[in-house]
């Protein structure tokens, strides 16, 4: 996995840190990237907040159930299409 971070530097920018934060929910970051992110989050309250909220958002999205229902007109229409097909 290619990250945008330079392989040598320890301090990363907020842009890079938020990218790593997004990536870590899905892929295993390299040890050095984990360190970079860890250090950045220690010193940057904004990215720390982003990281926290981002995790919360992921969790909430995965529990998302729509409360939308199909209208009766649509239901009747689809029902009659099915009936026709069954004949």
């Amino acid at each position, binding site marked *: *996995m*290619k990250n*945008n971070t330079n392989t040598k530097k320890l301090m*990363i*920018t*907020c*842009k*890079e840190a*938020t*990218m790593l934060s*997004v*990536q870590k929910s*899905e*892929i295993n970051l390299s040890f050095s990237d984990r360190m970079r992110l860890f250090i950045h989050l220690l010193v940057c309250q*904004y990215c720390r*907040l*982003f990281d926290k*909220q*981002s995790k*919360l*958002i*992921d*969790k*909430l*999205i*995965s*529990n*998302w*159930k*729509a*409360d*939308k*229902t*199909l209208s009766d007109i*649509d*239901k009747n229409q*689809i*029902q009659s*299409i*099915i*009936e026709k*097909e*069954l*004949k």
Partner: protein
Amino acid sequence: MEISNKLNPQNWVAKYSDELFGFAYIRVSDEETARDLIQDTFLSALRNQESFKGEISEKNWLYLILKNKIIDRYRKNAKSPLTRIDNEETTDEFFDESGHWKKEALPSTFSQAVNNQQHSFEFYEILERCKKKLNEIQLNLFSMKFLDEIDSDEICKELEISSSNYWVLIHRIKLKIRKCIEKLLYEK
């Protein structure tokens, strides 16, 4: 008309249409499209009844068909020239040249408690509105990654995008959605 393998097409609409519709709706963000997907799903199911072997429930079988239809739609959308990936964004609305947060983009605490203990209706209503601000390709990616939880390799293959493109897009979607939620919670 009697089917040997326990399928009951007559009852599909009454039993499953609302649930399937909700599932489709949060993925395509459009009632008309979601409705058509449900109709297509039932028709495909009717015409392929012999593929139902009773190994999974009738309901899960219908879900499977619907999921395939939704993935087909993602794929088709990705190929449409109108929704080609706009990776080269001229201005970054979140970060300055040196990669630091722009002042107006700085994250702030959500003004209302949002928690995952209770299904907060307000949060989902907000999420719905924020999702509508995404463009077509972002919406596809959002659904595939966050709702369907398909892994990135699979998504890149389906949408024919590179892994670095993928992350740039996901990064931006996340920044956008977070910002939008923060803003709408504040306005509530």
